[in-house]
């Protein structure tokens, strides 16, 4: 049996700028695969190519053995997609959105009805079936979109940043649906995210940055291969920072902070002995996917403050609407 998704030497560019640079990977059926990378790494472009919305410059991409460039219509029959930003019609009710999806996928009336009820129950929106989507909160819209993507029973599900801008409870809930679905239906799930904690449970993680895959493996493998212990410090002043950078060329600059890979306990002790009095903050980071990303790219995956602002904004919007 062919792989659920297989990508070979994929290249794509946008306005002369390379967005995907020689990307290759293969995902077995029933696996959960996470594409991890900062905003602008090329994740959305990759998903767009896989769900036949744009063409690659070069290379091959197959969905369940079907070439997405040569047979896009056939490939579309096997996929379900949840886009990064909502693609619901917010002037229709939840039920009408599902009915529409069933119709364009050619489902018979009885099948449409039964499946719409089933997927609504799955995401616990049965009571909201006749409500116009415009009145839904961000989390409800997301759940409805996931429900809709499952209505035609795809074997492969693409989720582009499915939990961005949602509060932690909703994120948790969405992940528990997805896990259940994967177990029950042997669904292959490809998720893109920049929330590192969400990929810890994935079977396979692929770290992508500037359009290239820089590491691939199970979360455990990645941590073993690239994860080191990091020492994060906030120097008291710029002179100290410069001094540390000269003494430890392996240090990474993260804004006002510095991060030092901890090679050994002795190295950490020696460092602290020398600079303890000139630091405002000291923090050790145990090996995690976050530190893997830092080791691979020399950057932190995301601006944490930015993520928090997103969550706040979305809850504020919901408050205003309800």
């Amino acid at each position, binding site marked *: 049996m062919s792989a659920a998704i297989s990508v070979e030497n994929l290249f794509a560019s946008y306005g002369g700028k390379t967005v995907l640079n020689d990307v290759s990977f293969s995902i077995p059926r029933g696996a959960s695969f996470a594409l991890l990378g900062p905003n602008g790494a090329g994740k959305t472009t990759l998903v767009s190519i896989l*769900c036949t919305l744009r063409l690659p410059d070069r290379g091959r991409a197959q969905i369940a053995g079907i070439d997405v460039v040569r047979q896009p219509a056939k490939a*579309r029959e096997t996929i379900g997609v949840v886009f990064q930003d*909502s693609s619901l019609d917010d002037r229709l009710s939840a039920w009408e959105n599902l009915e529409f999806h069933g*119709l*364009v996928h*050619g489902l018979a009336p009885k099948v449409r009805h039964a499946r719409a009820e089933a997927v609504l129950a799955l995401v616990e929106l049965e009571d909201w079936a006749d409500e116009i989507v415009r009145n839904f909160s961000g989390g409800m819209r997301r759940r409805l979109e996931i429900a809709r993507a499952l209505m035609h029973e795809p074997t492969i599900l693409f989720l582009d940043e499915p939990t961005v801008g949602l509060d932690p409870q909703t994120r948790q809930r969405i992940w528990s649906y997805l896990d259940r679905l994967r177990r029950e239906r042997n669904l292959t799930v490809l998720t893109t995210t920049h929330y590192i904690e969400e990929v810890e449970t994935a079977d396979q993680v692929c770290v992508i940055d500037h359009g290239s895959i820089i590491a691939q493996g199970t979360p455990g493998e990645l941590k073993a291969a690239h994860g080191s212990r990091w020492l994060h410090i906030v120097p008291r002043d710029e002179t100290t920072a410069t001094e540390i950078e000269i003494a430890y060329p392996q240090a990474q600059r993260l804004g006002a902070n510095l991060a030092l890979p901890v090679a050994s306990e002795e190295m950490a002790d020696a460092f602290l002995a020398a600079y303890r009095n000139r630091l405002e903050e000291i923090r050790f980071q145990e090996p995690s996917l976050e530190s893997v990303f830092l080791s691979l790219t020399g950057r932190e995956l995301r601006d944490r403050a930015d993520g928090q602002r997103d969550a706040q904004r979305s809850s504020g919007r919901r408050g205003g609407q309800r």
Partner: protein
Amino acid sequence: MNRAVILFRGVYGVWLREITRATRDRGQMIGGISRPLIWLLVLGVGLNPYFRGEVFGEVKYVIPFTYLQFLFPAVIVLNIMYTSIQFAVSVIWDREFGFLREVLVSPMPRSLILLGKVLGGSTVAMIHGGLVLILARFADVTLDLDQMAMALGLMFVLSFGLTCFGVVLASRVRSFEGFGVFSNTVILPLYFTSSSIFPLDPTLSRTQTATAYPEWLVFMVQINPITYAVDALRGTIIGFNQFPAWYGPAVIFAMAAIFFVWALIGFRRQ
């Protein structure tokens, strides 16, 4: 399962969505009702007495109809034009708010997606044109069933062509801002130069017409396809044609075909 059934369901789904959305768009509905009222009640009634000439004390209409009768078919076309071209907004909305992708990742062929969408838009536009027919009695226009069916048929094909024109416009416009102004600058000049509110007196010869009206205006009227759409509806509804009777339907069908192909070429690129 039969592939034709599956594809038909898709077209029906896209069509149904347009209809559902139109019934919830109160602004468009109000426009569709108030526009003919203003044009017929204010402009039509106001100019009605002046649409005639006095020759040796005998009152004669310039053409053998009252102004209200003359204007009535043109107001139908106006209502269709507004609704059809405003349809571009729905196309831009789909594209900018992401709904388009939901349809594009479905197995439906692009051409049928567009067909369903345009059929939906033209159904709504035809209904808006049909609203004007309710005022027929008031404008002293009587229609038998044959005329009614014929008129609705022409209205539908006209709506289809203009809706496709709206889709073509949409593929060139990036945002909603100013589309209202933009559509007015397209619709009103086309409407005013379609011999909708004044006749080109058919009893006059070409030279005489040129003395009555400036040459450029006659030229504008003659190259404007809407002129022939109005003429076709006038021929059907009040039995008055300013051009050979087959011109109108021919132009309406040609517009539908050309604009659909044009719209399809633009839509495929997305």
